[in-house]
């Protein structure tokens, strides 16, 4: 059966090549959407997990007020680390993190307000973070509290939009693969009508006749997905350096490729849809 499927693939090479090429592009769209979503959610996860809060202090806040504030914060069950950052330290940290030290090195320390950086325990509800921020804001020494909420909200909606897009694309492409492979198999059946007739006359069972076609459909689906995965991998590898240098540092996480199991699922899914497409096509068009 495998030998006959191989012969079929060889004989219908051009027909199948067209199908595989166009389906690869379709799979590439799904893979791209998945990749983007994966990286977005990675960023969101990282930032969401850290549950950070920056409490900016007034200039000339009294040391005992600050100490009291720290004690209150440390006493809360939700906080994991509380660290104070003086103006000088903030300036040093900023200069260290940015490459543009030449111009900004001259900035005085006063430009950077002293702050208390608070990290929340994982899974702290957002309402609780808000409540803490609100309470902290009433302290005399505090000028401003940043919980990064709006940033999270925007990122979160971006991630769910990406997930929706990937899902819709996945369904669409699945349907596309199903239809295209069904059609190529139908064409292949028409072109091989003579040999199908011969096999039937010699006493071939339906399974014997259909087997190679289903294998061919499976191969096309899996091959399209595999090609798309390889292409995506190449594009990712060539762009990774640039992404890491520009975006990743700012976002705090490096670009990641799709998990091995996602890649495997893509190829397997392609194969399964190909098999289903050809099987259903055979059911309708193989009537010798």
């Amino acid at each position, binding site marked *: 059966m495998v030998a006959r499927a191989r012969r079929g693939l060889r*004989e219908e090479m051009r027909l199948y090549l067209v199908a595989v090429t166009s389906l690869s592009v379709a799979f590439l769209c799904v893979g791209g959407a998945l990749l983007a979503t994966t990286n977005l959610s990675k960023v969101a996860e990282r930032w969401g997990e850290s549950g950070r809060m920056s409490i900016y202090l007034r200039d000339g806040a009294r040391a005992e007020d600050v100490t009291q504030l720290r004690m209150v914060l440390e006493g809360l069950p939700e906080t994991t680390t509380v660290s104070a950052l003086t103006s000088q330290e903030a300036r040093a940290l900023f200069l260290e993190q940015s490459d543009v030290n030449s111009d900004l090195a001259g900035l005085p320390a006063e430009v950077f307000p002293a702050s208390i950086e608070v990290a929340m325990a994982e899974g702290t509800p957002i309402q609780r973070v808000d409540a803490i921020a609100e309470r902290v804001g009433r302290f005399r020494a505090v000028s401003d509290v940043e919980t990064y909420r709006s940033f999270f909200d925007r990122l979160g909606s971006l991630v769910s939009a990406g997930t929706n897009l990937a899902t819709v694309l996945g369904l669409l492409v699945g349907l596309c693969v199903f239809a295209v492979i069904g059609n190529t198999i139908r064409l292949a059946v028409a072109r091989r009508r*003579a040999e199908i007739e*011969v*096999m039937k*006359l*010699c*006493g071939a*069972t339906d399974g*014997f006749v259909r087997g190679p076609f289903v294998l061919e459909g499976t191969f096309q689906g899996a091959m399209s997905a595999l090609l798309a995965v390889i292409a995506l991998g190449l594009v990712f590898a060539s762009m990774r350096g640039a992404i890491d240098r520009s975006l990743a540092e700012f976002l705090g996480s490096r670009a990641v490729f799709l998990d091995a199991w996602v890649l495997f699922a893509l190829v397997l899914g392609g194969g399964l849809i190909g098999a289903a497409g050809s099987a259903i096509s055979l059911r309708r068009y193989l009537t010798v």
Partner: protein
Amino acid sequence: MASSRSDDDDKVVRPFAFFRAGARADARAANKPILTFDGVYKYFREDQPTLKDVDLEVERGEFAFITGPSGAGKSTLLQLVYRKHTVDQGRILFCGRDIARLTPKSIPFLRRNLGVVFQDFKVVEHWTVYENVAIALEILAMPRRLVRSRVAEALERVGLAGRGQEKTCTLSGGEQQRVAVARAIVSEPALILADEPTGNLDPHLAIDILTLFEEINETGTTVLFATHDHSLIASRDHRIISIDEGRVVEARTGLRSWGTAKSGLHAVG
């Protein structure tokens, strides 16, 4: 895909498997006709049956012409045997088994015991000669080594020894028909159905092909040879089953292979 046989299929297949040419089946089956038509009707149009009340018996090892004008129903008669069509009334017994009652799933296993040859050859032109013949054995899931030796043997019998690797489309019509004959005999079926196998061939090639079928018949294979070519029929003294207006109106008993003592068997009403 022999492994996918259901129990149901096995009931049908096992008895058939005995009826290979030369194979000695049990005495009871060997004495029975290989093929029996019993009051067979076939309608393609409701008002006019193509075959009317056909009664016919074909003995094991017989060679019989089926003749009649074009459209008489020669092809239909053969198609009922290899179950391209189903009878509308009556029974057809192949090796004592009513093949009208076979389920569609069992039809492949019936066909494995038949060899069929057509006017238009029905060879796959882009396959090699070897592939065209081997397919009949690959269907039986036969080991490749055995396939190779049996195909070589069959090609030798039809006079195409050593030409297995040629593309079938490069062969002449007569040679392509020989490929089809090799495919029909390679699995050593008990019965060969030939539907105008010489219809597309020159007269001298037609005689060659007829002779080929006779040689196959010599080894014990039953041959039903449908043709409307009277010169071909006249050149031999085989039994003639003649169809006219849907009835088997006349049947000359086989003079050569079947003596006068048996002539009563072939009398048809």
